[in-house]
C-alpha cells in the first residue's frame, strides 16, 4: 500500500517536472503512435472481450453496421436493412465492390461464414458467442443479400453487429491459412491493415487505400503495449507516443499532463458508471430504509468535484447519459444527512453498526472514493470498513458467489450503450451479477422489453426499470466517469470515443 502511494507521488513529481521542458518530436509524416494498456493476444473477433482489442480492431475490421463516436448507428458493410416476421428476420443489403485487405471479395458468403463461425465450433471456444445467442442462422439470398434468422427478436442486435464478435472475416483466407495464423495475422475490410505484430510489445497498421469509405489520412499507426500508466505518460511527455488511450490515465495524473504545453487531456462521456451496490440479501442493507438512508448520507456531488476533478457526472440510476433507457428527468437523491439519520433510527439501526465495503484493490481513484463514502457514513453513524480485493477475485469469486460485505463496488459500461445490457445482468433473478435479489415484478419488466422492437415503447419500459430500481434503492449510484485520452498536440482531427472503439481514418499528424 505504502509502496503504491510512494509510486504515485513520485509519478506526480515526474509528470510535473516533465511539464517544465519540452521540445517538438520529429516523425516521418503520417505515423501515429498509440500506447495501449493491454495486448489481447489474439486479433480474432470471436476470441476476446477486452476493450483494447477493439481499440485496434475497429481499424482492421468492419461490421454490417457501424457506430462512430457520435453513438449513432449507420450502415457499415450493409448499405441497408429491413426487419421482417416480427423482428425475427433481418434482411441485409450488402455494399458492393468491397474487398478484404488481401483482395478477397466481400459478399454474402463472407457474412454467412462469419456468423456460422461465431455460432459454431470456433465461436464456442471463445466468450463472444453468448452475446449473439439470438442469431439462429444466416441465409444467403443472392451475392449481395442475406437474411439473418433470429430465435427471438433482439432489439440490441443491430448495435451488436457494429463491433466485437460480429466483425466480418474473410472465409478463403481463414480456410487457407488456418485459425492460428489468423489470430496473429488478421485480415478484414477495414481502413487499416495489420502489417506486423509482436506479442506483448506492439504492432503496426498500414493504411488500406482501397477501403470502401475512402483511404484513411494516416499512412501508419503504431501501437505499443504499455501497462504502467506512469510509463505511458512518460513516453507521451518524451514525444515517443502521440496518444494514450483509456483505460490508462488515472484522474490524479490529469493536472500534471495539462501543465505540459505539448500534450493535452481530451475527455468524453463514457458508458462507464460506478456504483456501490447493496447486499440486499442479508444484514442491515436488506432493509430498503437503510439503503435509502445510506444514499442520502453520502454527498456524491462533493466526491465528483473533489476527488474526480469534475471528470464525472452524477447518476440517478446505474447508467450514464449515453445509455438508451436513461431518463434525464430523473434526479439523484439529494445529500441529506439529517434525513439519513432519521431513516436509520426508524429502521432500528444502532449507531456505530459495522458494515463492510468491498472494492477493487488496484483502482487507486475508487479507493479514495470509497474512503470518502466511508467517512460520510461515519457521520450518519455507520462504522464502515473498506475491504480491497484483487480485481479478478472480487469479480469472479466474491460477487457472483454472494460473499460480499454490505456494499460492493461495481463498475459497468457496456459498449452497446443500452440499459438492457446493464439492468438485465444486475437485476434479473439468477444472473451472475445479481447474487442477492429476486424480484418477480422486476424480472417481468426486464423480460418484457427484450421482445419489443418498437424503440419508443422499449425506452419507456427501460426508463421505468430505472425508476423501479431507484425506488427500491438497489444500489448507491455514484457517477458516470469520462473516458480520458492523453493526446500530443501534433495530432489533429482526433475525436475521443466513449467506448474504446477507436477508428482513426480522419486523424492527421503534423
Amino acid at each position: 500500500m505504502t509502496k503504491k502511494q510512494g509510486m504515485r507521488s513520485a509519478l506526480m513529481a515526474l509528470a510535473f517536472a516533465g511539464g517544465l521542458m519540452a521540445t517538438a518530436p520529429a516523425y516521418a509524416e503520417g505515423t501515429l503512435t498509440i500506447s495501449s494498456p493491454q495486448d489481447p493476444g489474439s486479433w480474432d473477433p470471436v476470441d476476446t472481450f477486452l476493450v483494447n482489442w477493439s481499440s485496434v480492431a475497429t481499424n482492421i475490421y468492419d461490421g454490417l453496421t457501424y457506430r462512430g463516436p457520435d453513438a449513432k448507428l449507420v450502415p457499415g458493410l450493409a448499405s441497408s436493412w429491413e426487419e421482417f416476421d416480427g423482428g425475427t428476420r433481418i434482411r441485409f443489403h450488402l455494399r458492393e465492390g468491397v474487398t478484404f485487405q488481401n483482395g478477397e471479395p466481400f459478399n454474402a458468403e463472407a457474412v454467412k461464414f462469419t456468423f456460422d463461425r461465431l455460432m459454431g465450433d470456433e465461436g464456442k471456444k471463445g466468450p463472444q458467442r453468448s452475446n449473439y445467442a439470438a442469431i439462429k442462422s444466416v441465409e444467403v439470398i443472392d451475392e449481395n443479400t442475406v437474411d439473418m434468422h433470429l430465435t427471438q427478436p433482439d432489439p440490441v442486435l443491430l448495435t451488436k453487429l457494429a463491433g466485437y464478435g460480429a466483425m466480418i472475416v474473410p472465409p478463403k483466407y481463414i480456410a487457407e491459412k488456418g485459425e492460428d495464423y489468423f489470430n496473429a495475422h488478421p485480415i478484414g475490410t477495414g481502413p487499416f491493415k495489420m502489417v506486423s505484430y509482436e506479442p506483448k510489445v506492439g504492432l503496426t497498421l498500414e493504411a488500406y487505400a482501397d477501403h470502401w469509405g475512402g483511404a484513411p489520412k494516416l499512412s501508419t499507426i503504431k501501437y505499443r503495449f504499455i501497462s504502467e500508466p506512469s510509463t505511458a505518460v512518460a513516453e507521451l511527455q518524451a514525444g515517443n507516443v502521440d496518444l494514450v488511450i483509456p483505460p490508462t490515465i488515472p484522474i490524479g495524473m490529469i493536472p500534471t499532463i495539462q501543465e505540459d504545453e505539448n500534450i493535452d487531456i481530451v475527455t468524453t462521456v463514457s458508458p462507464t458508471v460506478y456504483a456501490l451496490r447493496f447486499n440486499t440479501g442479508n444484514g442491515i442493507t436488506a432493509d430498503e430504509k437503510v439503503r435509502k438512508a445510506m444514499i442520502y448520507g453520502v454527498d456524491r456531488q462533493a466526491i465528483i468535484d473533489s476527488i474526480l476533478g469534475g471528470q464525472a457526472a452524477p447518476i440517478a440510476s446505474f447508467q450514464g447519459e449515453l445509455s438508451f433507457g436513461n431518463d434525464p428527468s430523473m434526479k439523484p437523491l439529494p445529500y441529506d444527512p439529517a434525513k439519513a439519520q432519521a431513516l436509520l433510527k426508524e429502521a432500528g439501526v444502532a449507531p456505530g453498526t459495522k458494515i463492510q465495503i468491498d472494492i477493487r484493490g488496484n483502482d487507486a481513484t475508487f479507493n479514495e472514493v470509497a474512503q470518502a463514502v466511508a467517512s460520510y457514513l461515519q457521520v450518519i453513524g455507520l462504522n464502515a470498513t473498506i475491504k480491497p480485493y484483487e480485481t479478478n477475485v472480487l469479480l469472479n469469486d466474491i460477487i457472483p458467489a454472494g460473499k460480499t460485505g454490505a456494499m460492493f463496488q461495481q463498475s459497468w459500461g457496456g459498449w452497446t450503450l443500452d440499459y438492457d445490457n446493464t439492468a438485465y445482468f444486475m437485476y434479473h433473478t439468477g444472473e451472475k451479477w445479481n447474487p442477492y435479489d429476486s424480484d418477480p415484478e422486476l424480472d417481468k419488466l426486464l423480460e418484457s422489453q427484450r421482445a419489443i422492437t418498437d424503440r419508443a415503447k422499449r425506452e419507456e419500459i427501460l426508463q421505468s426499470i430505472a425508476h423501479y430500481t431507484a425506488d427500491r434503492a438497489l444500489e448507491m449510484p455514484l457517477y458516470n466517469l469520462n473516458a480520458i485520452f492523453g493526446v500530443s498536440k501534433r495530432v489533429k482531427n482526433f475525436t475521443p470515443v466513449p467506448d474504446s472503439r477507436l477508428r482513426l481514418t480522419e486523424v492527421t499528424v503534423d
Partner: protein
Amino acid sequence: MAGFLIKRLLQAIFVVVAVTLIVSFAIRLTGDPALMLSQGAGSITEEDLARIRESLGLNQPFFVQYADFMLGLFSLDFGRSFLGGTQVSALIANALPATLMLAFASMFVSIVISIPLGIKAAISRGKWPDQVIRILSLVGLSFPNFWLAIMLVLLLSITFRLLPPSGMTGIENFIMPAITMGVILTATNVRLVRTSMLETLQSQYIMVARAKGLSENVVLYKHALRNCAIPLVTYFGLQFGNLLGGIVVVELVFNWPGMGTLAFEAVGARDYPVLQAVITVLSIMIVGVNLLVDIAYGLIDPRIRTE
C-alpha cells in the same frame, strides 16, 4: 568429482520438479480462467463456461494437466496462452533473452562498480574513503528500485531527453534499467567485496607477499582478490536468482518485454500455461546457476570436490 556432480544434479532435478508441482497446483487455486475470459460478457451460462474450460483443457484432472505440462517440457512445448492462444514457447523465446540481457547488463554494471570500490574501502579501512563508500552503499541499499527507475526516467528521459523512457529497441534502452538494477546490487556487493577483502588481507600469505617486496597492486589483485573470489563467485551466482525475481518491477516501469512483464500479466489474466512456463524456466535457470556455482567452487577450490 563425478560423485559430487551426480549428487548435485539429482538435487537440482528434485528442486525443479517440486517447484513445478507447487506452482501448477497453486496457480489453480487463484480462480477460474473461464470466468476471467468471459468477464466482459453480461450473461454467461454454465454451459458457456464449460465449453470455454473444455477448449482450455481445464476439464481434465489436475494430474493429467500437470503430466501434459511436464511431458511438453521435454519438447519445449509449453502449451498455449489462455489469452489469445499464442504458443507459450514463442512468448518465452521473446521474453527470456530480453530478461537475460538485462540481468547480465545489471550484473556487469554492479561488478564493474563494486570490485574497485570494495577493494578501495578495504584498504582504507576506517579512513574517509571507506566511510564514504559505506555510507553510499547504505544509501544505495535503501533505494526502492522503482523509485530510482522513475527518478532516472524523470531526469534522463523527460528533463534532458537523452534516453527513451521505455521499451527495448536499442542499446540506449539498456542504460537506465541496467543502472537501476546494478546500483541496487552494487550496494550489497561493495560490502561483500570489502568484508571478504579485509579477511583475506589479514592472512599470513599476504604478509609474506608484502614481505617479499611485491608491489601493492600485485598483492591486491593477484594474491588477495583471487583468494577472496570464492565467496564472491558464490554470492554473485546466488544473486542472479534474486536478480531475476527483482527484475519484475524494473521491467514493468521500463515496459521491458521480459519474463517479469510476462509473468505479471499472466497472473492478472489467470493465464496458467504462461505463468507455469515462466516460473519453470526461471527456476530451472536459478537451479542451474546454483549448480554451476557449486561446480565453479569445486574447480576453484580442490578441497570442496573431494569432500
